């Protein structure tokens, strides 16, 4: 069913502006790469051929996987279901701790890809009884056209779609896709420009914050994940400022997940995040007024579950990626009846 990639005719990219000569400006992410003829943008997935910009990863995913939705993490969206995950080569960032570096820090030529049309992706998701398709692993912005067409196909066939992003997409394409997807998990990597610049390879916090506002404005389901890395983004003041910003700009009911760091990619020397640091972050977030705060990558920790901010009842009892029990009825707390925001059916 799934075949290896063939040397496809690359598809023309969207969101770019032809400039003088054969140079183009890519308008897909915050970088706005100026791409001369024959060259590629920062992500190396988009190539200028004779003044036309092409995407090289259309129909060419390299990762196709069935996972629990909790793994994203996305906790207020059809808990306990499976999602069909799709990813390609490359990224808009070069984070030193990237967990998916095998794909995200490689060009399409360096990887083995499959050949799968948007229709076939939806077929696969249906065959595997998945509740949604997720664009994840690497930054979906770098395969925007492919993702967009899969989303439209899935929408037509009544299948939900979600994406896991670093928030680097430009506003115009972002709004366009938000019109069709059902949920977004955003990696908020830190709350300082320095971190984005030094650890993420020239990312921009301000742009990511803009993305978060846009998702909220468009009314698409949003969850935030903050990977707490010892000494790099674990300052309580930084976490407090972030939580207050989320409360004030996005609302207190946006779920925020604090994840435990473990050494990966090039950050191999740091210890895993102390549990006390994660618990402190949880307390800071709750004190700031955030209602749905959880801890991740700490299997067995009680804060891995979701609690009712009103009565304290366990709404969703989780261990790692597994949902053990749900105490909700029609999207509300079974005990006190509080309506819990999210996508429940």
């Amino acid at each position, binding site marked *: 069913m799934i075949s290896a990639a063939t040397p496809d005719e690359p598809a023309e990219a969207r969101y770019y502006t032809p400039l003088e000569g054969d140079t183009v400006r890519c308008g897909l992410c915050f970088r706005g790469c100026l791409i001369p003829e024959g060259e590629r943008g920062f992500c190396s997935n988009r190539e200028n051929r004779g003044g036309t910009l092409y995407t090289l990863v259309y129909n060419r995913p390299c990762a196709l*996987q069935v996972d629990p939705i909790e793994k994203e993490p996305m906790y207020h969206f059809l808990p306990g279901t499976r999602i069909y995950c799709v990813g390609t080569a490359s990224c808009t960032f070069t984070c030193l701790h990237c967990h998916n570096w*095998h*794909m995200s820090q490689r060009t399409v030529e360096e990887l083995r890809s499959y050949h799968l049309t948007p229709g076939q992706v939806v077929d696969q998701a249906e065959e595997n009884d998945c509740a949604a398709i997720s664009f994840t692993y690497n930054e979906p912005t770098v395969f925007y056209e492919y993702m967009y067409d899969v989303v439209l196909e899935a929408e037509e066939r009544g299948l939900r779609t979600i994406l896991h992003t670093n928030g680097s997409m430009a506003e115009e394409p972002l709004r366009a896709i938000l019109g069709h997807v059902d949920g977004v998990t955003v990696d908020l990597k830190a709350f300082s420009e320095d971190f984005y610049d*030094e650890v993420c390879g020239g990312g921009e916090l301000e742009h990511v914050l803009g993305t978060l506002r846009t998702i909220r404005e468009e009314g698409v389901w949003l969850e935030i994940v903050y990977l707490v890395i010892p000494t790099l983004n674990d300052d309580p003041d930084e976490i407090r400022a972030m939580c207050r910003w989320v409360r004030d700009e996005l609302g207190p009911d946006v779920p925020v997940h604090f994840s435990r760091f473990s050494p990966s990619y090039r950050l191999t020397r*740091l*210890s895993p995040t102390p549990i006390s640091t994660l618990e402190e972050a949880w307390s800071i977030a709750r004190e700031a007024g955030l209602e749905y705060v959880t801890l991740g990558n700490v299997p*067995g920790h009680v804060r891995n579950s979701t609690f009712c901010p009103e009565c304290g009842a366990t709404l969703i009892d989780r261990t*790692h990626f597994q949902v053990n029990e749900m105490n909700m009825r029609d999207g509300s707390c079974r005990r006190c009846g509080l309506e819990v925001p999210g996508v429940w059916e």
Partner: protein
Amino acid sequence: MPRPSRGAAGAAIALSGLVGMAAQIVLLRELMVAFLGNELIVGVVLANWLALEALGSLALSRASGRMRDPAAAFVWLSLIIAAALPATVFVARVMRQLLGAGAGQGLGLLHVITGSLAVLAPVALPHGGLFAVSCRVLCGGSGEPAEAGRFLGSAYVLETLGTMVAGALLTFLLIPHLDPVRISVWMALLSVLPCVLILHPLGRGLRSRPAASAATGVLLVASALALAAGFAGRLHRYSLQLRWEGREVVDHRSTVHGSITVTSSGGQRTLHYDGVPTVSTPSPDAVRPEEMVHIPLLFHPRPEEVLLVGGGVEGLAAEMLRHPIDSADWVELDDRLVEVARRFLPGTATAAMEDPRVRFIPDDGRHYLAGTESRYDVILLGISDPQSIQPNRLFTREFLQTASERLAPGGLLGLSASSYQPYMGEGLGRRNASILMTLREAFEHVRVVPGENRAVYVASDDAALSLQTADSLAARHSAREPGTVVVTPGYLRYLMSRRRTDRFLESVEGTRAQVNTDQRPILVFYALSHWTALFSPALHDGLEWLAGARPRHAAVLAGLIAAVFLAARLARRPAGRAALPLAIGTTGFSAMVFDLAVMLGFQTLYGYLYRDIGLLVSAFMFGSALGGMLMVRLLRRGGGGRWLFAGTELSVAGFALLLPPVMGALAGGTGTTLGGGWLRAAFVVLSLAGGSLVGAQFPLASRLHLGGGSAPGATGGILNAADLIGGWCGGMLGGVILLPVVGLRGTCGMVALLKFGSLAAFLLSRRRPEASRPPGPSAKSPA
């Protein structure tokens, strides 16, 4: 200028050999922690050391001839080493900050190369120069080739003996009892002592060389004070704190196997082994130990006797005890690790150590398993992803076959390797493919469960293994109630879904890989290649290219060498002068490969027994010194000439050809008489023989080179540099690429071909008439 006595000069040379080796070991260990070492880093650091020594040797080989007072030069070089050594240990500890590497970031190969060059240079450069100068000191002004040749030979022998003593001294006395800073200050003191000997007789030396004498005095007092007043200890603690910026250093100790540091931060303690974070408390990682232990144990219907090899401190020991087993043997190579964990990280090892079912065995896993009479229901390998030959011995076909013989009927073995389920690239794919192929050669049935970040392999000769399903494992889980948080019935069904396993096998089997064997430990190369892909993508392609080297390339190279010398001879050009350094260089290369090959062979058969390895290295060096001494005696009796040299060349090549079959025979002999003294002795003899062949060449080459009209300092410097450069190539290529990729037989074949090439070059080089200079006045005037 007053001249030092020959005895003083000889003692000084031996001490300089000792200090050099000690400095090399101490700095290598420090750099291993700075760079989170693996075999490649060891190779780079040692190679850089040799290259810098060669450079120093070459630079001073020319200058030494013109020196009016070589003894003073010797003193100054020794003083530079004495002052630089403690400073370089300090620099190695703050290396990451100096290189501008962000907190927690691993460093790439370019950083490793440049950083280690910067750390080693202040010691290795003057140390290399010291050899050329000491040749001059020992020979005096003797220009008489036969006599000077003998002196050069003696210098070589003395330095080698010093080196040998250093190895033993550090391994058995200094490293276990002193911190690296104190060792470096002791070595500084030992470096200053020869200066006192050289400046002897004191009165005259002081008067004629006041600056050198004053500097010697200052350094002598400073290093003695640093040791006596505890300043060295304070510097050690201060620099450790700098290295672990932002974390409190709770404990630090060196063992013969590596260095262990416990840091504390945010209420969490982390144990680092050679700089790598290994386990944290109070909340250690649960996913890895649970996957590695419970999946294999659940594949067995009733595990009663279990063996765990390594990884116990990381949570594996505690996890296996969650099953209703009768007894567990826990084998760990470095028992200090367990000791530190028990003391500083409660919860990791204490409970397991105190469980009456557990028998703790401090031993090398391979050594233990080869000799045990016990039979196990489950053998768990607690280490993964071998990056060097030492741990790789638990992943070879031969070891796995032994393990299968130690299983009780229906028994199984479990091991794991890093993987990444969403996308298995060439790097991880090839490693997993090799493990799968190797397991399939040793066992009838192999199952793989693709875990979160690792693949768990379970192998058995019992067909029951292939009948197990996620449901049967889930049922056992429910019956045994191990109280796991990650590996639950639901998780097992997720991991063992048909689709997930198929996708894993599909991506693994799509890569080209080879079986991992004792004589060709290919997994080590795959791991290092993967590491370069991570940290130095640009160098990764170069490494893969070098891995294409095969014996035929060595044949072409040997042919080219012969052709160049033939052309030079026909054209009556003096390319022949290069023949001796070429011979010494290729012999240096061979020596390094022999040393690595014998150690590889010994380790795979007997286990990583530090004392035995030390004995082998010492035997090799002693052989080298012995060969040198015998040759010096021969030279003294007027023997030695071109044909003898050609004979030594042939014997090195012959040794290379004999080594693989001899080691094969030794491997064959272990099955019946393992531990038999004669087999161990055979390895010692092999080391001695290899060393003495190599060692005999140096004095003879010196004699022939001097006969060509060179000054002693120049000859010593050039030949020493050639030896070191050869060793550099052998260290870089041999351990990292040739032995793992081409295997023992292919590598030794390449060595032999190379030696045939250098022999041809030597025979084709024109014989020069011996210089007939009258011996200098100093030749007769030993003080």
